[in-house]
């Protein structure tokens, strides 16, 4: 894991520098009256020291010459990206479109496009899951799911 640790060490070092600056701007106060940034500033300083330790250990690990496996395999990366993209779109449009249409579209996409199942099966499962989940969450569990474009139906 040495290359992964070198990357993560640098990331956390940059992160801790950023948080230290931001916390300093919030105000450190003093020990009699600690300010809003007091605890985060010192946490970030400690994180910075620890991230340097991660990086240094990885650097020395590299010199031993052990073979490293890549952090990300190439298999299914596109699948993960597409699934994530569909989920973010779900989150952004769920209130505007409403739970029923957007869940139906999400399932059709996941089963039909990502998993390449037959369309009859995809549509049947998507309609069934959307209907059952609506009954379960909205009617039985009283979750207030967004109505969206179907709001006029008042069901």
């Amino acid at each position, binding site marked *: 894991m040495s290359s992964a640790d070198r990357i993560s060490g640098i990331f956390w070092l940059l992160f801790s520098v950023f948080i230290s600056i931001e916390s300093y701007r919030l105000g450190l106060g003093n020990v009699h009256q600690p300010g809003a940034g007091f*605890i985060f500033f010192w946490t970030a300083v400690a994180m910075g020291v620890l991230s340097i330790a991660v990086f240094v250990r990885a650097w020395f690990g590299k010199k031993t010459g052990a073979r490293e496996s890549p952090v990300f395999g190439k298999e*299914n990366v596109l699948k993960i990206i597409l699934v994530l993209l569909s*989920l973010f779109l*779900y989150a952004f449009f769920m209130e505007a479109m409403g739970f029923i249409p957007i869940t139906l579209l*999400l399932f059709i996409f996941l089963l039909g496009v990502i998993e390449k199942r037959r369309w009859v099966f995809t549509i049947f499962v998507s309609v069934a899951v959307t209907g059952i989940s609506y009954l379960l969450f909205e009617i039985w569990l009283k979750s207030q799911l967004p109505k969206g474009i179907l709001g006029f139906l008042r069901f």
Partner: protein
Amino acid sequence: MYCFFGVLIGTLVGVLPGLGPASAMAILLPATFKVEPVSSFIMLAGIYYGAMYGGSTTSILVNIPGEAASVVTCLDGHQMALKGRAGPALGMAAFSSFIAGTFAVIGLTLVGPPLAGMALKFGPPEYFSMMVVGILLLTYLSSGSMIKALIMAGFGLILSGVGMDTIGGEFRFTYGIRRLLDGIGIVPTVMGLFGISEVLMNLETEIRRDILTNRVKNLLPTLKDWADSIGSVIRGTILGFFLGIIPGGGAVIASFASYAIEKKVAKHPEEFGKGAIQGVAGPEAANNAAAGGAFIPLLTLGIPANPVVAVLLGALIIHGLQPGPMLLSKAPDVFWGTIVSMYIGNGMLLVLNLPLIPLWVQVLKVPYYLLYPLIILFCLVGSYSIENNSGDVVIMLVFGIVGYLMKKFRYEGAPLVLALVLGKMFETTLRQSLILSRGDFSIFVSRPISLAFLIVAVLLLITPIITQRKKLSTLEEQQEPN
């Protein structure tokens, strides 16, 4: 009735890989708003300890842990199943869970009230030092690098600062994003870090599931099985109970620690990993005892020992109850109602679980291409339902990616979540202590309880450095003769 629903849903959640008790509680939380606080809490608590029972079923039959605390049960439980002993493995898991769960409830009954009385003497310095121990203990017990675990705890602490500063009233780390004004919610974070990230990992490598097709028979362990495992059950129960009480301990760590101890004390340690019944009995007892033990700091001190209990804490606050030493006097019905329900729930689980095993096997036969969209849907609805806000869904997805990257770079999620859970209280108690002492840090060492906690904290920090040094010097000694 609520107890029955709780334990039944809990068992189902435990059986289904990828859906943990925290997510299930979050999904059901809005449904409990309209019922009495005591009924709501009984159901949510049932989900928690029910999941501990259910998790073992998938570990034994499919070699996939349904719940993080059952990871270790895979090692010997599945091997037993492959040798045709799935029945005794499932039976022993259920019985040891029952024994440990009941012991934990008795412990809660006996320890809870006196501890609540003692906790009234705790001031901000004691709470602060106790939380320091909790966070350090979790990083100390983490399976990977302690340095990385400490970084995660720091990250969690910083995340807990997002939103309004409770003392000064300023907004911190919000950058004009409205959703962040109220801070980062624990439930969306937990769902993202553990639920969504798990789905992403599974999408990367197709899950192969070898479900046992043979009928599971002879669920009752034999007398020899009992003789072999009773010691493990007792050890696992005691260890789990105490690890459950300490913030940062929890069911996952208890199960791993119990397995390590059983392997050490076993007459035939070489049988571990090849189907030793002690490897099922000990960890299963430990994770259930820990689940019960975790209610002690929650109900008496108001401190959540792990992320799942943090969701329970949230549920109590939503119902207008403040968990802590005053809960026993202000809402005795919630305190004692939960305890009574746990006695009943444990009995129900034993009666329910064994006959329902064939049903859970059928549930497990659902192919993953159908299962993962369902898990995703539960997470989406669960995170949205907390405050009916799509911003929480975005937060969950962001933490899903963070959790996926953490798994890739071998960083653990538990220290992050515990620090996020305790962060606000951690900061408030530190600042209150310093205001109390007019900036004098000696307040933390001049009060005996706080000092005792801090000594433990220092030991937790120093021990890994000493053991690392010892390892290095032995290595050097071994290399010298060459």
